[in-house]
């Protein structure tokens, strides 16, 4: 009797779930598998092109140092952007969660998070206007400073870092804020009643308790930054060659798809290793 209703339930669950997961399979999981397949081909298997299975694409990555160097460059960029975002973002989250009280907190939090959900391409473009020579920053600096300065940060690694921090900073603020909000104020009061000073409370209580949130934010920033290509292109110009831009080139300029697929897959492997290593923390931070 119960097995009948259990079977009915299973049929209903299947009916409700299959459209969404079919869609995800066709649009995400099969393409990712196809990418792996392509990365072992000598040429694209379309039309009457000649192709065969090969390891050449991976050999190219491991034999020439070009791609590995660029991947390392991208990883370093990821570390830098993540580090700066955490250093800037955590105090901001702390102020929001523990200093500001009442209704204004919600509004301010929304204001901090809002840019994150707006168009990232346009935000990067807006930095281009600010940072370019004869741009707004240049003009403002000359208006304030008594001596003549030339500020042209455009097309420099600094510009790329600024743009990326601007893009992803709200992420770490969001996750840290949620973690800090979960810390009951009475814990801080208890520590004070036991004689702890501000610094002790920060290092022994708040940082350990907020660590999962901070780490989750860090991972969520690091991963997309390593795979970024639009930001280095727009803000870095000729000096903006990173691992992501090389992948982009394989697909839109050089049309060496198998190499692009191999490079993408290597990046995916790196990303999955990082996500896997941190998944217990990410899962804990979500709840």
């Amino acid at each position, binding site marked *: 009797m119960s097995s009948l209703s259990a079977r009915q339930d*299973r049929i209903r669950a299947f009916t409700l779930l299959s459209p969404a*997961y079919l869609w995800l399979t066709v649009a995400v999981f099969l*393409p*990712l598998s196809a990418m792996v397949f392509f990365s072992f081909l000598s040429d694209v298997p379309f039309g009457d092109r000649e192709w065969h299975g090969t390891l050449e694409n991976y050999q190219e990555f491991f034999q020439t140092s070009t791609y590995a160097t660029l991947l390392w460059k991208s990883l370093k960029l990821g570390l830098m952007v993540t580090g700066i975002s955490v250093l800037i973002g955590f105090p901001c989250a702390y102020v929001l969660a523990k200093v500001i009280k009442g209704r204004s907190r919600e509004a301010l939090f929304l204001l901090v998070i809002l840019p994150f959900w707006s168009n990232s391409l*346009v935000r990067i473009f807006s930095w281009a206007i600010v940072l370019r020579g*004869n741009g707004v920053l240049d003009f403002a600096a000359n208006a304030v400073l008594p001596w003549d300065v030339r500020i042209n940060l455009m097309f420099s690694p600094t510009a790329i870092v600024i743009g990326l921090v601007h893009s992803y900073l709200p992420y770490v603020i969001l996750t840290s804020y949620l973690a800090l909000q979960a810390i009951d104020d009475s814990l801080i009061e208890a520590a004070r009643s036991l004689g702890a000073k501000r610094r002790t409370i920060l290092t022994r209580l708040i940082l350990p308790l907020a660590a999962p949130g901070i780490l989750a934010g860090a991972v969520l920033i690091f991963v997309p930054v390593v795979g970024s*290509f639009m930001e280095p292109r727009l803000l870095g110009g000729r000096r903006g060659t990173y691992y992501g831009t090389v992948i*982009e080139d394989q697909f839109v300029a050089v049309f060496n798809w198998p190499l692009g697929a191999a490079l993408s897959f290597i990046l995916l492997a790196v990303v999955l290793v990082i996500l896997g290593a941190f998944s217990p923390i990410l899962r804990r931070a979500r709840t």
Partner: protein
Amino acid sequence: MSNRLLAHLGKAYLGLILFFLYAPILVMAAMSFNASEFYQLPFSFSTEWYERLWKNDEILEAAWRSVWIAVVVTVIATSLGTAASIALFRYEFPGKTVLQLLLFPPIAIPWLITGTAMLIFFFGIGLDRGTPAVIIGHAALALPYVIVVVTARLATFDRTLEEAARSLGASAWKVTMAVTVPWILPGIIAGGLFAFAVSFDQFVVSYFLSEPGDSTLPVLIYTSIRKGFTPEINAVSTIIIAVSMGIMLLAARYSNFGGEQ
């Protein structure tokens, strides 16, 4: 005292962060009303660039395409996502955790990887670059967001309401439409707004999947920027950012995103 001083410093710091986040956007918006083509200061007000925008068929077409793609994506992602959320909430079955975990790759994997993989696969099965490919890709990216938002709303739903309705003789379908869906409606609306934003603001996946000359607005902007800045891009970017922030403010109203959790 020192506590109060610290609180003031904290607020000043928050102000600085907000300045960092909003200043470039405001500068861009201001420049779109500046008469000088080369962003020269001092500022002199002009709506010339918006007028030109209105006459630029390429941009108008791309904008229109972006909007209707986003609407189609919203409808697909919201209906599929809501159905999946209800099933994940209501039923227990083997493999449920795996299904929940599968929602994260589309969110967590860099769009560069997802986008190029889609390009390869769609090309392989004979679906060329173009609007259908863009819609399939966008909907897949938006789906997990919808499921996450609707599931969050469902978590506040009292299961006994469904049981009560069923004990009164309502069928499963009737229960869903009369009890469950009305309760999670704010979540569905918020999820739909997220889906719209994911599609409307999507650049990376569109970039790889759309046909040159037949692209969405963000792709058109990217290619124009790489050719050189024009105040027209400023103007259209200002409009885009206003629209996407407006949508997210609406979404915030419907989900308690940002509220006390």
